[in-house]
């Protein structure tokens, strides 16, 4: 039932990159390296995923696992040097972004792919008014005059639920709260009706009540405009209520993929299971918080075998020797774990027997709500 992918061979079910009209973003074997004084950091090391038109996908993982670098590579916002997109293809709407000229890429940025950053407090320019910044985005990508750009900016602010947008437009960022600024960022991102919205931890810097509002907002606007969403987060709670598909990353690699229900209800990688178990839950009140022991490996001293092996409670000798491939488990699911090699069926049975007791009930209610 599990098939082992031939290294380098594209799965037969996938058409040639960029050809499927239903797929807006098709990332193939993306590798982004940073050449620094101590050596080369392989921040993203062979990542593949696809997002359908209007679809929602989350990249999940701990800090430093390559989520943000993946997003910045798609946008080609990696500083080169020290960064280098060593290989790969980023097919967006029929074009490979990595082969575009700088000029063409500028038109894509903001116009067709928009991005929201983690820190709304620092992502807006303190010396320009909110209106100036939205209008700049509008004018860069649409052929409109000053008056029209102003109207569009006002409308964009109204769309994201900013009260009194006519007044807000003349204000400076420091006059707005964190939630309002993130709304402004979303307004700016969506003002040009992009086909893809990349949200890099859009709620991490906000307090919990505002987080919910902003997530709801992103979802509502995304659905209304038919924009595809690439959400980057370390918070599986956020994932559960926002996206359709999940890609779990660790140390620059994809560890597991699947729909959000599948990955959360039945994680097929010890790392995903560990992440889920680490979500604090009311149901486990009084018990010590579950953690994944250890830390992300030093990028200069990556483990020989599976990158998660030193921290994995299920690891055995095999994991130390050789790195597993991303096993295609059928139905869009895949896992980079030796458990899914045909040779280790017995271990897999034990792994699965432990079941989904780790999933916190709050996340389950989100899923079923």
């Amino acid at each position, binding site marked *: 039932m599990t098939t082992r992918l031939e290294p380098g061979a594209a799965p037969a079910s996938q058409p040639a990159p960029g050809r499927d009209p239903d797929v807006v973003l098709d990332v193939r074997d993306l590798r982004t390296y940073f050449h620094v004084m101590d050596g080369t950091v392989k921040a993203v090391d062979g990542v593949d995923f696809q997002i359908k038109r209007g679809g929602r996908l989350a990249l999940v993982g701990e800090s430093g696992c390559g989520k943000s670098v993946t997003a910045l590579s798609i946008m080609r916002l990696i500083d080169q040097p020290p960064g280098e997109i060593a290989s790969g293809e980023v097919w967006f709407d029929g074009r490979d972004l990595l082969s575009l000229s700088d000029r063409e890429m500028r038109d894509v940025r903001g116009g067709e792919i928009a991005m929201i950053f983690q820190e709304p407090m620092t992502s807006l320019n303190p010396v320009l008014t909110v209106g100036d910044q939205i209008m700049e985005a509008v004018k860069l990508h649409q052929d409109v005059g000053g008056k029209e750009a102003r109207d569009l900016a006002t409308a964009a602010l109204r769309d994201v639920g900013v009260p009194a947008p006519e007044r807000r437009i003349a204000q400076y960022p420091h006059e707005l709260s964190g939630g309002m600024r993130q709304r402004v960022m979303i307004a700016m991102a969506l003002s040009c009706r992009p086909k893809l919205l990349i949200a890099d931890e859009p709620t991490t810097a906000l307090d919990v009540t505002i987080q919910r509002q902003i997530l709801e907002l992103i979802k509502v606007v995304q659905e209304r405009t038919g924009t595809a969403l690439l959400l980057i987060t370390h918070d599986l709670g956020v994932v559960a209520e926002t996206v359709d598909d999940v890609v779990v990353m660790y140390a620059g690699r994809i560890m597991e993929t699947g729909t959000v229900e599948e990955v959360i209800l039945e994680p097929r990688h010890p790392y995903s299971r560990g992440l889920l178990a680490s979500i604090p839950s009311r149901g486990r009140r009084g018990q010590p918080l579950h953690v994944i022991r250890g830390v992300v490996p030093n990028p200069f001293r990556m483990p020989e075998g599976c990158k998660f092996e030193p921290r994995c409670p299920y690891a055995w000798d095999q994991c130390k020797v050789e790195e597993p491939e991303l096993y295609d488990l059928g139905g869009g699911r895949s896992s980079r774990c030796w458990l899914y090699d045909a040779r280790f069926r017995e271990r897999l049975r034990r792994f699965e027997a432990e079941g989904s007791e780790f999933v916190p009930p709050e996340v389950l*209610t989100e899923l079923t709500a």
Partner: protein
Amino acid sequence: MAERVIRAGVELTPAEVEELELERPDYEVQLESLNQWQLAWRRFKRHRLAVIGSVIFLSIVAVGILGPVLLYYDFRVIPHANEIVYAGRAPSWVSGSWDPPLLMGETARLQRDVFTLVVNGARLSLAIGVGATVISVILGALVGGFAGYFGGAVDWVLMRIVDSLLSLPLLFVILVAAQFLGSGSWFSLMLIFGFLGWLGLSRLVRSLFLSLREEDFVDAARAVGVSDFRIIVRHILPNTLSPIIVAATLSVAGVIIGEAFVSFVGFGVDLNQPTWGNILTNSLDFIQQGNWWWAFFPGFAIVLTVLSINFMGDGLRDALDPRSRI
């Protein structure tokens, strides 16, 4: 049966749902909303010396602009030889003779009124100071901005150029340039000071850019598709304006003194275009004859201007510092 609504694992009553759905009120307290310039102006006004300095400086500028209206004599008119009766007369309020009125006394050879010269000198000295500063600010901001923003090889090349220019003895370069390019015109002197005065400023701007380019809003601007040039000029440069304004203010004072020096040693502007520097130069020979007014008033004008500019720069430095909260 009503639909069950669950948020954060809690089932909500219909009333609570309705509350959630209501448009979020604007919770922000409506304070008197001031932008950074209004805040800076407020802080500047509390800096007494700076206010005095700017009043004096603006008066000097006004005098320079309104010069011809204020002047009793035209400094260009050289009187006929037989009209020279009392060349080198003291100011009227010293000598007591008000015919003709001589506010600051008279020069010797050409029977020029010192007041006329000082007022006309204000014009050119300020024009040289401000003009040279404008040139050096533009050059310094562009060179520093590009070096700091792009870093790497661009930065290395530009900064090595700056280093090598800074290692030249600038004063002599200015003297030589004034001699060969200047030919006594105030305009070329202004250009010389402008094109040689941006070096320090470019280092300042570069260091500001080095830290500002790491700011999130720069990435955000790039993600919107803004070009590098536009990010430098429209997004980062306005953030560096405060220190640039302070440096520029002080540079005006520096150039005025520099011009005075160059003119004083005889490489500057000729007396047909009076600047405070060359008025001083020409007074030299006659100081021993007791014509103190000839040297005193232009010298005093320089001191007053430079002092008022420095006070103003001090006040601006405090007012434009975003960390100061007065």
